[in-house]
């Protein structure tokens, strides 16, 4: 009885969790679109929003590879580079035949994205059989190769970089819309059966293969999709900045994107969005506020923030402290109190399974090396398919 009553509530919760990502992007998009269209948005805000938007796209797409597929990629800036150079080049050509800036932007985004995806396919096909750190260094190498090659092409502007036409102040509206699309694609992909297959590969590749998942196919698909979005982010960069500067796409930038993904939480799209926003914001504000002699402090502060956050989130010894100050838990307990007041007093306190609190992404290794007892908290049946269990 009890569980049946609660089921719809839980279902809604899942939806809310996914919905919150759109809300987050829309919260940036809608108010600034209104101010932007009325012409009162500041230039620096517009630049910042565009940077946030392409950071979001990059972080979410890299999260597909690192968080969901479980492969470490350090070459995301390389795909962005392909998108920026080729998309920018194509846009320069299109500007001569098409008047509408918007159409040029959209077409060049498609071209840049597709070219980056092609490169993703090219690099992914042979290298995705590599594991872990080996794949990481190959992707890093790819990123460096790409930008060296582009730098040495005279048609792409050589050392100066490719001159592009800026889109103008309202670019961020399109950029944020693209971010929204990226979130939509990433989220729905991961919620589909394909997504579950992809996450199964992350949890245990051999087991996934044994279950009939086409590992190579899925790895490639994720890699290509991520490259596609990185390429689009590159095109947005090219419409935001001129000249397209090969130095921007160094491995340092790939690492910056990785930092966003890791700080936001692997396999957590909301986390990526927030980390991308916050880190870009910090970076820009540190740069613009620390003028003159204070500029050297920027990296110091940034580095300290990085180290402290990672420590706080991961250090085993801080686990106790962390739990005490866990906001989520505080909010949860408050919510529970409120809910208790609203719901009938007849509800037993122990029957609340709280299955959303149980880690749903349990690495297959852990499961296989754990003795599964009926009441063990790592029982994978409960979090995955509560309805089925109920019907039985």
């Amino acid at each position, binding site marked *: 009885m009890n569980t049946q009553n609660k089921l719809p509530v839980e279902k809604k919760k899942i939806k809310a969790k996914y919905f919150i990502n759109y809300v987050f992007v829309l919260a940036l998009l809608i108010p600034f679109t209104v101010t932007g269209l009325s012409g009162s948005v500041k230039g620096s805000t517009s630049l910042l929003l565009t940077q946030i938007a392409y950071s979001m796209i990059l972080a979410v797409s890299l999260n597909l590879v690192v968080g969901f597929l479980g492969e470490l990629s350090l070459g995301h800036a390389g795909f962005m580079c392909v998108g920026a150079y080729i998309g920018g080049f194509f846009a320069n050509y299109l500007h001569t035949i098409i008047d509408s800036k918007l159409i040029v932007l959209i077409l060049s985004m498609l071209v840049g994205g597709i070219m980056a995806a092609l490169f993703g396919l090219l690099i992914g096909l042979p290298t995705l059989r590599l594991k872990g750190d080996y794949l990481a260094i190959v992707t890093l190498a*790819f990123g460096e190769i790409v930008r060296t090659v582009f730098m040495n092409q005279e048609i792409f502007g050589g050392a100066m970089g490719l001159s592009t036409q800026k889109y103008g102040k309202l670019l961020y509206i399109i950029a944020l819309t693209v971010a929204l699309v990226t979130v939509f694609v990433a989220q729905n992909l991961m919620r589909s059966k394909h997504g579950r297959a992809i996450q199964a590969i992350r949890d245990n590749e051999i087991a996934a293969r044994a279950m009939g998942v086409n590992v190579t196919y899925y790895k490639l698909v994720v890699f290509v999709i991520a490259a596609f979005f990185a390429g689009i982010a590159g095109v947005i960069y090219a419409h935001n900045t001129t000249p397209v500067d090969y130095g921007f796409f160094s491995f340092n930038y790939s690492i910056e994107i990785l930092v966003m993904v890791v700080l936001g939480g692997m396999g957590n799209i909301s986390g990526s969005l927030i980390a991308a926003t916050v880190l870009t914001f910090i970076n820009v504000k540190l740069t613009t506020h620390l003028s003159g002699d204070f500029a*050297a402090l920027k990296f110091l502060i940034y580095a300290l923030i*990085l180290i402290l956050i990672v*420590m706080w989130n991961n250090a085993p010894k801080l686990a106790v402290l962390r739990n005490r100050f866990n906001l989520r838990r505080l909010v949860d307990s408050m919510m529970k109190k409120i809910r208790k007041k609203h719901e009938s007093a007849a509800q037993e306190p122990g029957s609340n399974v709280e299955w959303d609190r149980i880690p749903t992404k349990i690495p297959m290794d852990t499961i296989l090396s754990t003795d599964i007892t009926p009441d063990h908290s790592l029982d994978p049946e409960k979090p995955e398919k509560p309805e089925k269990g109920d019907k039985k």
Partner: protein
Amino acid sequence: MNTLINGLCLGGIYALIALGYTMVYGIAKMLNFAHGDIIMVGAYAIFSTMALMGHAVPAIVVAVVVCTLLGLLTERVAYRPLRGASPLAVLITAIGVSYLLQSIAQLIYGSKSRAVSLGNFGSVELFNVSISISSLITLGLCLIIMVALTLFIKKTKVGCAMLAVSEDRAAAQLMGINVNGIITLTFAIGSALAAFASTFYLMQIPSVTPTLGSMPGIKAFTAAVIGGIGSIPGAMIGGILLGVIEKLALSIPALAPYTTAIEFGLLIIILLVKPTGLLGKKRREKV
């Protein structure tokens, strides 16, 4: 011929840095992205001591001491609290440490490159090719250090303990090995190697900047992977191969602008043929 010697010499430096990478990776199972910056710190230590005392030998000693202490410090403060956490978290911390060291160096020494001269030893004629003596010293000392390190790991008790920890940390602990102590020792050795690397680096490229370490760091990481990460002879072979290829590419005008691409391309090709590097061990995966 000249190119080859230069390549060997540069390769020796890469190999020394790669040794530090590979040891730390093999034993602590983490990519120490700050390793390149320890070289930078070593170079600044040499620069400061040279400015104070004007002689190379104490400068090198100071650099070794400073780097070792720095290695121990970063291990203790930044990495040990994260032992057992996800490897990516440690990776990010290492990147943070790298940024931190660079900005501290810039705050102390400024960003202008500082010239350091460890002395000009002139050059000698060998088989009709003039070879600078500092290249020979670099090459010779690199070889000696590598052989000594290999012997240390193969022949001493502590070396065996290191091997055991790299093989299976939990089992090593059960056998009574002080795992934390071994990891600390590894960091100390790796950082001391970095100090030697910075000495040789300054012999070849006599100036210091705060960002000195980042590119050699990445190159050495590449070298370590080419050789098979975790393998000490692999790191040597990888480093020297990378150095020679780099110099060969630079000496051919048409290829010279693409040197970076060629080096990294080599890495990709090698990994495609041998997915665990030249001397990497294959591990069978079990469910």
